[in-house]
């Protein structure tokens, strides 16, 4: 029954206004300011004389280092997303299907706990675990499995581990919602038709949860490519990502224009991915909206 066929905005559309105002004042204006600063020789807010320049963008194109940094950022984002999906899915499935309410509550607490630990402290905990004298290496060495400490810190692996840990709750909770809505009887129907539980999962649950997979992946990817505390602390500046470079430019080189240009590039990359995601979501699920 589609009354929605009438395309004119109705009274409820007005409810977007407070958010629109928030975005106008606290997002478009500031980011616009940053975008302007990325093509100027100085800060127009506090300096009287500034001129137009493309030098910040030219610098990025001129030196392959920055392209490598962009690629490293995207690569870390992709790997983090894939790993978060791989370990988030089973947990989300368990959470969605667990019968006991207490069990569910405990799982929920366990999933939320990493988010509550505080980004700085949590990353230090990872340093304790992953450093040469850390828990993992000491355990492995005392078990005689390795003789030299594994290099876990200051590598992309370390960053990915740290990022996955922080962002897996976002993946799990997105997926739990979607998997929870999939009628369990569909899996039973598939099993009844002769599919093994694993096969039923692959044939039924997995495709139906695709919107959740995409939504969760998008979120984790977006968060991972814009993270900087974890990459700094676990990568020790030896792995350079865009946000680290931005941080460095702001806090140590005081070159806000270049930092802004880098930020704009990161935002554009992200938005391209969101649009691609929207397309993909439309293709796989016919679902109309982002969730």
């Amino acid at each position, binding site marked *: 029954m589609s009354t929605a066929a009438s395309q004119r*905005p109705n*009274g*409820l*559309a007005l*409810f*977007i206004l407070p958010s629109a105002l928030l975005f106008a004042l*606290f*997002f478009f204006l*500031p*980011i616009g*300011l*940053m975008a302007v*600063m990325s093509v100027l020789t100085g*800060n127009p*807010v506090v300096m009287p004389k500034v001129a137009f320049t493309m030098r910040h963008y030219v610098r990025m194109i001129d030196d392959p280092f920055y392209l490598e940094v962009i690629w490293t950022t995207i690569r870390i984002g992709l790997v983090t997303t894939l790993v978060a999906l791989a*370990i988030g899915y*089973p*947990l989300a*499935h368990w959470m969605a299907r667990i019968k006991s*309410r207490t069990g569910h509550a405990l*799982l*929920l607490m*366990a999933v939320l*706990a*990493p988010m*509550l*630990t*505080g*980004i*700085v*402290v*949590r990353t*230090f905990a990872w340093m304790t675990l992953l450093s040469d004298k850390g828990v993992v290496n000491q355990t492995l060495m005392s078990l005689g499995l390795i003789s030299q400490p594994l290099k876990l810190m200051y590598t992309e692996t370390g960053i990915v581990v740290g990022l996955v*840990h922080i962002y*897996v709750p976002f993946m799990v*909770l997105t997926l*739990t*919602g979607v998997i929870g809505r999939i009628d369990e009887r569909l899996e039973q129907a598939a099993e009844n038709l*002769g599919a*093994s*539980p*694993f*096969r039923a*999962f*692959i044939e039924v649950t997995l495709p139906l949860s695709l919107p959740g997979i995409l939504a969760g992946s998008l*979120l984790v990817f*977006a968060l991972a490519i*814009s993270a900087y505390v974890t990459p700094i602390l676990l990568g020790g500046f030896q792995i350079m990502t*865009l946000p680290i470079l*931005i*941080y460095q430019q*702001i806090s140590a080189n005081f070159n806000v224009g270049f930092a*802004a240009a880098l*930020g704009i590039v990161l*935002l554009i990359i992200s*938005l391209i991915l969101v*649009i691609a995601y*929207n397309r993909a979501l439309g293709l796989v699920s016919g679902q109309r*909206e*982002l969730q």
Partner: protein
Amino acid sequence: MQTTASSSLPAAQQTASVRIPRPTRPYGRTLYLAANIAILVFLLAPIAIVVVFALNPTPFIQFPPVGVSLRWFEKFFASRDFMHALWFSLEVAVLTTLSATILGASAALALARGNLPGTRLIVATMLSPLMLPAILTGLALFQTYVLLDVGRPTWGLVAGHTLVTLPYVVRTTLAVLHNFDTRLEEAAQNLGASPLRIFFEVTLPLIKPGVLAGAIFAFIVSFDQFPVSLFLVSPGNETLPVTLFNYLKFDLDGTIGAASVVSIVLAFVVVIGLDRTVGLRSYVKL
């Protein structure tokens, strides 16, 4: 994730008449549980380390720990700075949660029901604060406040936090609204409820799980927000993560572990409190 072993035997190849009992099933179940428990260990190990760190008497992380002491907790609770930062963080998180929840839920309602043109573009825009390194967002906001000559007020910090938490509320609320049976609203209308009453008596209670899930995320993300706060906090009014980060530059001792343990407990109290007061039920969805 169940019964990986049997996947190599497509069901169609098995004879339809006789169903062979599957010895693989419990095996698959075990694997499924084992995998999940391994994942939980991964999620919780760093938190265990933080607790060890908080209780370890030496001023640096040591493994294995050399003893148990509450000195870092004492130091944390005795510190006026930490206590003030803790309460200030809570204040900001509560205000952020309120504003992000109200704005986000309204926006989601408008997006799902308002017949707005360009809904996809709006949703994508609303997610975009998540995609910018928050330090740049923080600096951009700071620059804007300088431009507007408003200083660094608490509302400015709350606005920044609202900006980066709003996407979560919009997502969770939209998810529930898309699964909403609009006949329930018609039923209420049929029974004589005015549009306003329908909203408060039917729509709102039913989208509550989504709104609440968004609110919880907003609270957690705001409470743990560091990069956006970095430029927006003002002297004397610093949030806990900023205080911790600055503390860390000079004193990397168990106090930050203690602060973290206190934060976890506090955040759980808030989440459980929300559950008890407004009824989280079992649906936290993002």
